[in-house]
């Protein structure tokens, strides 16, 4: 008779089905493809464009698998990465700057699987080749800027409140705050109160006074500094994302690691030079008076004839590439910008970007806008890249400056410290603009502290070897278990295979990136998952030796082994958990795999084998057990 409840059978069946379905997408190998998207202002992707691409590929004798228009982008698949590269070159030459051409691994998972959320595991760089960077963000720069800005603000505040001061200076050591020196005790008390009231992020404390110098120490609160540090990382992440999108890598991985590191993984890229150039770019921005608007007659004329008014520069709008004339005079620079955030305009309900300037910037802005209501103002985005070239064996560094206008708008009224840019096309446009503004304002310098370039052949090598290791390891353990524990060994084998299937399914569903250490984790999990079955089988043998009946032995075997299995697995889980807390990618991938593996093996080794054992032995009278 069976003491295994029905609902547990159902659970096991469901888990097996889940495992098979969600692990299945990994059997569909993605094909190399090239994805084409239209930049703003370029003609949209349509059938006509598709015809042109097909013709161009045929002309260059590049064999494409299929070329399809898929919503807003065009996709061409190729047999291998070499063909993909020549295909991409041919398409780039055809389409020019208006379109972004990116490498992509196109999934071949059928639609019905994708519809239920099943997808294949993304492959790590060590398995598909690519470039990996680890970057460190220089936080000092941010603290410098923030302290200087507060010093400015305090000077402005004291002047406004008519408190006479001797000096407001930053302390020599970074992060040590600002020293305000006043002339009397009364002034100091007043200043202390005013600063504390006005700026909640500052700590104010009296310092030692000598003669008629009354010192007030103002420091930025640690939690504000932490928030700033966090903001800097976020900011840099955003900026990097923007720039790397321009590089045309289909699925770049850009994420924060630890407190001040950023990881960038670019799959499929083989030449890191281009990527490094983008990462090393320093951007600033300038608010300048506009002369007319983007694309107006005067600007068109200037762009056509090359006759640019002497007090102006001719730039192009970012995205739409329309010409625009901008005065050479700079009103405010990115250094004077404190914050920019996107939101919705209260009155019109349209997207807007709200900008905050520091005290000096606010004064200049107020002076300018007072006199120029109704006139245009443009934001110029300046990117400076240092290119290093080898000329006659010597390194020659040439700075290359790219300037573009990211926004031009009409001044609606006089404003200073805070103002809004309204009338933006979409919420996305607003957040993009805010990001660009911030990117230009406080991009902290980043240093590349780790760089790895993995060739595509090495990636394929690793996949092959990893797969072979998993297969061989699994096969050997299956064989050994079947030999040693006979029927119970075979049941354990079924469990082990399903452990692998369910482990892969869970990893795919969560979206764990598969890496070489991850494969090592899978193999180790398989080796250790059998332990639970060894424990159970040994227990059953023991019970049989002690003279229990077969059914009682099975029951007692599972019952007694369970406590041990649980203790052993919980301690093992603690070890795996520690591995996942390690910041580094490789170890983390291993730890995550191990952790999921321990949990799935707990289910397959105990519940799943129990179900099979009950199914096989359940309704029969038994004299012996094959264990």
């Amino acid at each position: 008779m069976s003491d295994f409840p029905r609902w547990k059978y159902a659970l096991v069946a469901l888990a097996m089905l889940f495992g098979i379905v969600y692990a299945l997408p990994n059997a569909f190998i993605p094909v190399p493809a090239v994805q084409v998207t239209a930049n703003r202002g370029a003609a949209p992707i349509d059938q006509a464009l598709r015809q042109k691409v097909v013709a161009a590929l045929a002309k260059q004798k590049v064999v494409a698998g299929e070329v399809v228009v898929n919503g807003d982008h065009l996709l061409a698949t190729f047999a291998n990465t070499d063909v993909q590269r020549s295909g991409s070159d041919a398409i780039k030459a055809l389409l020019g700057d208006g379109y972004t051409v990116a490498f992509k691994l196109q999934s071949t998972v059928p639609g019905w699987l994708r519809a239920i959320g099943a997808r294949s595991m993304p492959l790590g760089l060590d398995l598909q080749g690519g470039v990996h960077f680890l970057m460190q963000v220089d936080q000092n720069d941010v603290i410098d800027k923030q302290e200087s800005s507060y010093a400015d603000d305090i000077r402005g505040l004291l002047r406004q409140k008519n408190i006479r001061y001797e000096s407001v200076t930053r302390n020599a050591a970074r992060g040590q705050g600002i020293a305000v020196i006043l002339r009397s005790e009364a002034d100091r008390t007043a200043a202390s109160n005013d600063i504390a009231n006005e700026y909640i992020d500052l700590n104010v404390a009296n310092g030692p006074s000598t003669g008629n110098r009354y010192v007030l120490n103002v420091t930025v609160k640690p939690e504000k500094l932490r928030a700033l540090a966090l903001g800097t990382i976020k900011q840099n992440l955003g900026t990097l994302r923007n720039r790397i999108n321009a590089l045309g890598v289909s699925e770049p991985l850009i994420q924060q690691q630890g407190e001040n590191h950023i990881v960038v993984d670019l799959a499929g890229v083989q030449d890191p030079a281009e990527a490094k150039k983008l990462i090393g770019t320093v951007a600033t921005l300038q608010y300048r008076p506009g002369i007319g608007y983007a694309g107006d007659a005067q600007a068109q004329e200037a762009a056509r004839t090359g006759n640019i008014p002497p007090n102006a520069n001719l730039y192009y709008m970012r995205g739409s590439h329309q010409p625009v004339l901008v005065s050479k005079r700079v009103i405010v620079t990115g250094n004077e910008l404190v914050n920019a955030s996107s939101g919705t305009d209260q009155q019109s309900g349209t997207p807007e970007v709200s900008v905050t300037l520091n005290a000096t910037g606010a004064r200049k802005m107020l002076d300018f806008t007072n006199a120029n209501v109704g006139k245009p103002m443009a934001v110029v985005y300046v990117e400076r890249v240092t290119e290093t070239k080898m000329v006659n064996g010597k390194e020659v560094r040439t700075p290359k400056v790219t300037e573009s206008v990211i926004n031009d708008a009409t001044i609606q009224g006089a404003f200073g410290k805070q103002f809004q840019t309204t009338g933006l096309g979409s919420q996305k446009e607003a957040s993009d603009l805010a990001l660009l503004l911030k990117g230009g304002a406080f991009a902290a310098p980043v240093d590349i502290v780790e760089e790895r370039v993995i060739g595509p052949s090495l990636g394929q090598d690793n996949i092959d070897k990893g797969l072979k290791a998993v297969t061989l390891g699994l096969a050997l353990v299956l064989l050994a278990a079947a030999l040693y524990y006979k029927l119970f060994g075979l049941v354990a084998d079924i469990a082990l295979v399903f452990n692998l299937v369910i482990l892969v399914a869970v990893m795919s569903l969560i979206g764990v990136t598969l890496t070489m250490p991850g494969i090592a984790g899978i193999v180790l999990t398989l080796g250790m998952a059998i332990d639970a079955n060894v424990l159970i089988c040994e227990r059953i043998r023991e019970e049989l030796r002690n003279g229990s009946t077969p059914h009682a032995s099975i029951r007692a075997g599972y019952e007694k082994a369970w406590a041990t299995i649980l203790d052993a697995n919980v301690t093992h889980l603690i070890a795996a958990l520690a591995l996942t807390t390690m910041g580094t990618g490789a170890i983390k991938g291993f730890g995550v795999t191990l952790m999921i593996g321990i949990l799935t093996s707990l289910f397959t080794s105990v519940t799943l084998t129990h179900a099979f054992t009950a199914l096989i032995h359940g309704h029969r009278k038994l004299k012996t057990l094959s264990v």
Partner: protein
Amino acid sequence: MEIFNHNSNIPFLGMRKYSIAIAVCLMIASIALIATKGLNYGLDFTGGVSMVVDYNQPVQVSEVRAALTKGGLDNAVVQSLGGTREVSIRMQPKDDKGMKQTASGKVNLDKISSDVLGMLRAARPDATLKSRDYVGSEVGAELKSDGTIAALFVMLGIMAYLWIRFERRFAIAAVATEVHDVLVTLGIIALVQREFDMTVLASVLAVIGYSINDKVVVFDRIRELFRLARKAEPEEILNRSINNTLSRTIITSLFTSITMGAMYFIGGPVVRGFAVTMLIGILVGTLSSIFVASPILLWLGVSKKDLMPVTRDNPELARRP
């Protein structure tokens, strides 16, 4: 099929003086090895530049070394990556003479790798660059401290769990044996000077997880037998527990070793270090589960009454007549 006699009663505890003496000696030797010879830290820890170079025709490591020396790179470490056509070259960026001229403090991986490839091609034109890495030294320092913290976290976590689920003495014995396992594993890695990189660090942490598994199984049996036995002579109980679980301890070790062996032989250079460390760790962990953990437990004075299920002392009941 049974390999082990289930009635075996090997007096493991009887040899405890010797086994502990050997374990202590191994630990001291390991510490001495780690202190004197040191671990052969890989790129992940030392920082620097590493390249994997592929040749069309088989190549000798000495040949590659000669080509690099000729180009002025004396300190590069050249290793074969299994097979005859693939080598890894590790070096510090400052060793590249060409780099010294542009002492800007920044490392130009592209330049170094093209320099090195130039040297290699001068000797053998069939060399191609398969991958290249640069790791800053500060990243390595961080990894070392992260690894140490993770190891401590594991030990303390396991100790806390065993303290709650079992008893104080079990927690101490387990962690003491864990320290032994990790030290001896590291000692062997230091002895054979295997490269200690990030995957090896991961597998050292995995060894902790594996070997605690082994100990817990034995401890579990000890607790069970203590609770069942009417007359509980600790030495006899411990010995019986080890013997009862012996078959399982060895079979599981064999199964895990099989998979790690498969990985060592065909998993490729990336996971070879991982597999070797795991194999060493499995051996050390299995032996210490049998010979080291229980003697410590005995010395700490484990007894039946410490392990009986806690019966709630109800003051209310005690007061009743």
